[in-house]
């Protein structure tokens, strides 16, 4: 599409389409392979004792390479949450809930959708996913090696 409205104060419209081939690298590649197998893999650093999700190649606290992989537990606690009501195309249709969750045994939180939540009343729904709420990991029926292969659901 290219439109030209060339009088003074006019507008010329162009649509720019670009393709990118993003290199996964070793760490993200291993994480994505793990998702296909139904696992959430974190890296760990024996020097700092910290465990990272998303996994990191390097521990930013000890300045040493992360030297281990661990499977994250499928339960954890919401650290932050929001219900997105407007403003997005190309993802799931709003309203959708998202949360950052610290899975048990992991030192950082990872973000994803919160599913199986009644969003008809936003106040009620937001309280159900308030920070501090326990959640479980739920894998979907198809796993393609992307972060949305799993989501969170309230533990109770």
């Amino acid at each position, binding site marked *: 599409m290219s439109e030209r409205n060339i009088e003074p104060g006019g507008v010329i419209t162009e649509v720019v389409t670009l393709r990118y081939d993003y290199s996964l690298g070793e760490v993200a590649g291993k994480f994505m392979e793990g998702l296909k197998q139904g696992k959430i893999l974190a890296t760990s650093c024996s020097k700092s004792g910290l465990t990272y999700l998303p996994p990191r190649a390097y521990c930013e606290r000890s300045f040493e390479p992360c030297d281990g992989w661990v499977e994250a537990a499928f339960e954890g606690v919401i650290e932050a949450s929001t219900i997105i009501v407007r403003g997005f195309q190309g993802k799931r249709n709003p309203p959708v809930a998202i949360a950052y969750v610290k899975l048990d045994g992991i030192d*950082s939180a990872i973000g994803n959708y919160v599913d199986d939540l009644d969003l008809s009343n936003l106040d009620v729904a937001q309280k159900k996913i308030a*920070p501090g709420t326990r959640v479980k990991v739920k894998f979907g029926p198809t796993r393609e090696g992307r972060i949305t292969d799993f989501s969170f659901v309230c533990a109770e």
Partner: protein
Amino acid sequence: MSTNNTVAVLGTYQTEFKTHDPDHTFAEQAQIAAAGALKDAGMTPGDVDAIVFSLAPTYFMGVADADRWSIDHIFGAGKPMLRVHTGGATGGSAVQAAYNLIRSGMYRSVLVVGAERVAETPDAQDVLNLIFDVFYERDIPLSTNTSVGLWATSYLERYGYTEVDLARVAVRARRNATKNPHAHLKGMISIEDVMASRMISTPLKLFDICPRSSGSAAMLIGNMDMAKRFCSAPAFINGVASRSTTYWIGDRMTPTSDADLTDFVIAAEAATVCFKQAGITDPLAQIQVTEFYDPYTVMTPLQLERLGFCAPGIALRLEKEGYWDVEGGAVAVNPSGGTLCTNPIAVTGLVRAIDAATQVMGRAGTMQVPGVRNAVSSAVGGIAQFYNCIVFGDQPYGH
């Protein structure tokens, strides 16, 4: 103190801000600001030794790295020029870069200039989603709005506030902006109006969120020799500090985190350094005006608390009691209306600095607060990943 260390604001300019500016191109906007600041300072392009260009992501306006496009327009050909980009903190970082260039003794005067047209694309949320990691985060609907939704939910939960408490911040900002000829959004609105505006990402509604603004701004900064030649009452840059923190917002939430997102640790750390440089030991007693970078209502109380204007968790209670009002308040918080009313991202931090500096210079026009000796500005970039703050004083303070 040695006057060699003194860095002063000699002149400023900002356009009126609005959604679209169909009468000018990006580079012409930058030119209007550069020419305006030179005129304000009584300087010519020959008096400028170097240029710092304030330019955030160019996805919004669709010409990659548009600093190049602007070189001739801002009288930059033949001069050293560098671009600064720290997301929303860009304008504050640009002032810091210019300050450092002068303080180093390299240059006598530096023009900080930039322009923005955020609304050139209707796909702004898609552009903002691109700032997230492509492997782990981009598949979920993260943007600045939704990330700050996460942040605001945690803040309200931690300190026991409601959406109504946030709404008062927007009401005050829009009221303040009625005195600001440059502001994009302005007018008297009620708490009910904020509550009735459409929900974007809980707890943030449309009126809790800044507009997308087009316009430009510029500031001329110089050493003491230039101040003596060109400005009888400059604003002195007495403190400047910045901090950055991890890209991963999930690393800023857990018990083992270094820098808690909810409590905006980097703002406190930057302010401690900045205030020490400027001799500010009691912000509430010594600073009369703040110009915080506050594109979301929640970011005003956070900064008041983190910069030490009040204890953690009570800024919204004091908001209700009028502590942050221009008239009758303890400190005039964002007399311009702040970023909630005007957000030309690439120059917003610069506009905050201009609005703080002109208060100290007594040149803030209809926004002028009487008796301003010190004013603080701030700028925030990424998902609260970059923080910058600056203290302007009517007298130089050595550090």
